[in-house]
Every structure is written in structure tokens, then in C-alpha cells.
């Protein structure tokens, strides 16, 4: 479980996050949603420690990640897997080396065991026989899968995904969403997904946090989101015609 407590963040005097509180539950796919520029990615970066909040703290199963000592931070970081919006695969390494990278650097696992684990993770995300391909040789959807394989190779307790289906066609996007959901259920990990894609919200949103102009305006599940009376959330949810039709 991850708790965020009273997170504030400003850049050059511009307030991006103001007093965000929330809990991301274990074994659930937790979504942070909102329009572009509402602070979703900044909140995610505060949670994973890439940005230090001005105020407030983040607790990973009770461990203070924001103000804890370096030992705690390193310990927590090694339990984190993250899929980046642009995949962040290492250009100079092939698929196998990319997925094996956390094992190479962070563990002393024997080479054959590492290879078994890499192959298992690649198969788990539906990729086989691409081990020796370079990131530039595979499609966007495959890159996302490799990113997920790399994120789960070290058996993380926490999985973060920043816009996992941006730039993908609708079918591939749904496959990636379902993969994230399956992995979350299978390994009982705490998954946090930042998205503004309503398909993702309806498909995998067990626990959803809605941000608007740096504030948390709503929290609930995908079953409750269609019945909300929060105007800003309704504007966001029913911005496209398909969702309007669903509402009737």
C-alpha cells in the first residue's frame, strides 16, 4: 500500500499540486486521471522520488520514502518497477539486455538464472523470439511490453505506469491495459497508472483518483465514475461522443 500525505509542489512559483492525499491499495490497479497539465505526472514523479515535494510525504507500506534515510529509499526503490511514457528502453542494449538490466546491476543472480527469468518475463508479456532485437527494430506496442517485462523482472512490490497506452492503437492499448491488470492480480502488487484514456479507466480502474488543477476532486472505482456529480469529472469523462452515448 502506498499513502500520499498532503503533497504540495510548485515550479517557479506556479502551483502544480496542492494538498494531495490518497491511498493506493495493494492488489489493485490504482489510476490517477485528469486532463493534460493537471499534475498527474508530477504526482507520480513525487511518488517514485524523481521529484521532491515541497511539502508532504509518501509512505510505502509505512516506510517514509520522502524523508527517510538513504537506506530506506534504496530499499524501496529496489521494490519498484516502472513503465515510462516513452518506454525509456536503453538504446544501446537489445531487448534481452534491457530486461536483464535490473538483475545485472542490482542482483548477483547467476547468468543462466537471469536468462530464465528474462525469458519468463518476455513470455509473460507475450513476446517471444525478440531477445536479440534492438529497441529501434520493434513496434511501439512491443516496446511497451518490453518496458513492462523490465519493470516486473525484479519481482517488484510496486508497479508504476506513466501513460502506458499513449501512442498506441486502441486494440494494442487495451491489450497493454489488460496485461497490467493481469500482472497486478497475479502478483498482488500495488499498481499505480497515470492516464487520461477513458478506455483504461473503464477497463482496469479498481481505484481512481481524479486530479483537477492540482487538487484531488474525486476518488472511487470505475463502477462509480459514471454516476458522479462532480462537474469537472463529468466534463472529463463525457468529453467524447462514445461516453456520451454510454450515459444515454
Amino acid at each position, binding site marked *: 500500500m502506498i499513502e500520499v500525505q498532503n503533497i504540495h509542489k510548485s515550479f517557479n512559483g506556479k502551483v502544480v499540486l496542492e494538498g494531495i492525499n490518497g491511498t493506493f491499495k495493494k492488489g489493485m490497479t490504482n489510476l490517477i486521471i485528469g486532463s493534460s497539465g493537471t499534475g498527474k505526472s508530477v504526482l507520480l514523479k513525487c511518488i517514485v522520488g*524523481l521529484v521532491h515535494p515541497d511539502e508532504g510525504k509518501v509512505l510505502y507500506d509505512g516506510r517514509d520514502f520522502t524523508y527517510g534515510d*538513504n537506506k530506506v529509499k534504496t530499499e524501496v*526503490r529496489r521494490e519498484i518497477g*516502472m513503465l515510462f511514457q516513452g518506454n*525509456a528502453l536503453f*538504446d544501446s542494449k537489445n531487448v534481452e539486455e534491457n530486461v536483464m538490466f535490473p538483475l545485472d546491476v*542490482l542482483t548477483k543472480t547467476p547468468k543462466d538464472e537471469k536468462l530464465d527469468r528474462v525469458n519468463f518475463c518476455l513470455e509473460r508479456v507475450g513476446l517471444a523470439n525478440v531477445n536479440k532485437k534492438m529497441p529501434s527494430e520493434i513496434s511501439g506496442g512491443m516496446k511497451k511490453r518490453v518496458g513492462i517485462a523490465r519493470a516486473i523482472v525484479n519481482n517488484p512490490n510496486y508497479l508504476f505506469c506513466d501513460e502506458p497506452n499513449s501512442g498506441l492503437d486502441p486494440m494494442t492499448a487495451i491489450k497493454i491495459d489488460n496485461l497490467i491488470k493481469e500482472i497486478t492480480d497475479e502478483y498482488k502488487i500495488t499498481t499505480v497508472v497515470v492516464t487520461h484514456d477513458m478506455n483504461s479507466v473503464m477497463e482496469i480502474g479498481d481505484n481512481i483518483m481524479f486530479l483537477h488543477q492540482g487538487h484531488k476532486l474525486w476518488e472511487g472505482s470505475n463502477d462509480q465514475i459514471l454516476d458522479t456529480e462532480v462537474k469537472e469529472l463529468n466534463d472529463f469523462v463525457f468529453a467524447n461522443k462514445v461516453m456520451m452515448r454510454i450515459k444515454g
Partner: protein
Amino acid sequence: MRSLGKYLIFIKSLFVRRESFRTYISLIFEECIKIGYDSVFIVAIVATFMGAVTTLQTAYNLVSPLIPSYIISLVVRDMTILELAPTIISIVLAGKVGSNIAGELGTMRITEQIDALEVMGINSSSYLVFPKIVASLIMYPMLVIFAGFLSIYGGYLISLITGVVSGYDYVYGLRYEFIEFNVTFAIIKGVVFSFLIASISAFKGYYTVGGALEVGKASTNAVTSSCIAILCADYVLAKLLVG
């Protein structure tokens, strides 16, 4: 001053929260190939022509019959060892290696590869930059020695081809009043310049913010700053070591 402070903090960050020694070994070897081996061709071309041109220019300017011809190679020797091999080659390498380091790290920054390392709990600056600096410290002095040898040899070849100095006089001039410390001085310069090029270029690349345009700017800034730092360090070292 703010940039200098940030640079010093960046250098300090290379030595904290390091990964295992084993992790760095292969990275250092890879960087040695990229920084050293891949630069051999350009260094060879520049050094050989530099020596040849210096020999011709010196011969052209020393026209008095009172000056013995072996002075030409003496001048070429001292210029090569004291300035041309360490300083000019470092400036050439600042262009080649410095822009490469800044471009590589800048691209890694804007494509979130550095963030990915940080999220994994890896000290990205130490993991990415430390091997580059160590590899530079190992390879640059070797390149300086290689450049010095080729520069002097280039002068020898052009002497034979054009006949501005005889082979015997050229070799005599090379050996005449040779000060061994000058070679040590050139190697010291190589070490200092290598650290400056690798660290400044890495610093510029590591803190790139924006997109492709900013990566290009970071590469240009890396080369400019490295060249200025090399010239300043050259002056300071000359003052300190040879008065």
C-alpha cells in the same frame, strides 16, 4: 558561480551510492573503446599533419644561415610535446568525445532513460559518468603520447620528402638538449584535460532539459566549455609546472 557549485555537487555525486566494482569494470572497458580506440584515427590524422605542417612552417621562418637546421626539429619536438600533442589534441577530442558524451547523456535524459535508472535505485550519475571519466583518464594520456610520436614522425617524413632538413639533422635536433620532464608534463596535461572534457561534457549532457534542440545545444555548450577549461588549465599548469 551557481553553475560551478552545481558542477562540484555533480562531481561529488559520482562517488556516493556507487554500484559494485564488478558493474563498473565492463562499463569502463566499453568507454575505453569508445573514447580511446575510436579516436585513434582522428588523432593520427591530426597529429601527423600537425607535425608535418609545423616542420614546414618552422623551416620557412628560420631562413638565417646562422641558425643550424636541426633547430627546426628541436622546435617541432618542444612544440609538439609541450603544446600540440596535449592541448590541440585535447581540443580536437573535446569536439569528438565531448559532444558525444553530452549528446548521449542529453538524449538519455530527455527520453527518461536516466529517470529509469534512478527509479531502479541506481545512482545514475555515478553509473553513467564515472566510467566515462575513468576511461578518459586512462585513454587520453595514451592518445597524447601517440599523438606526440606521430606528430614528430610526421615532421620527419615531410623533412625527407621536401628536403627542408636532412634526416640526420632532424634526429639530431630531436635529441638535442632534450628535457625528459616535458614528456611527464604532457602526460599530466593529458590527465587534467581528460578529466575536464569528460566531466564538463557529462555535466552539460546530464542536466539537459527539453528536447532534441536542447540536446544539440548541450553538445555545443559542452565543446565550448571544455575548450575554455582546457585553455585555462593549460595556462595554470604552465605557470605551476614550468614557471
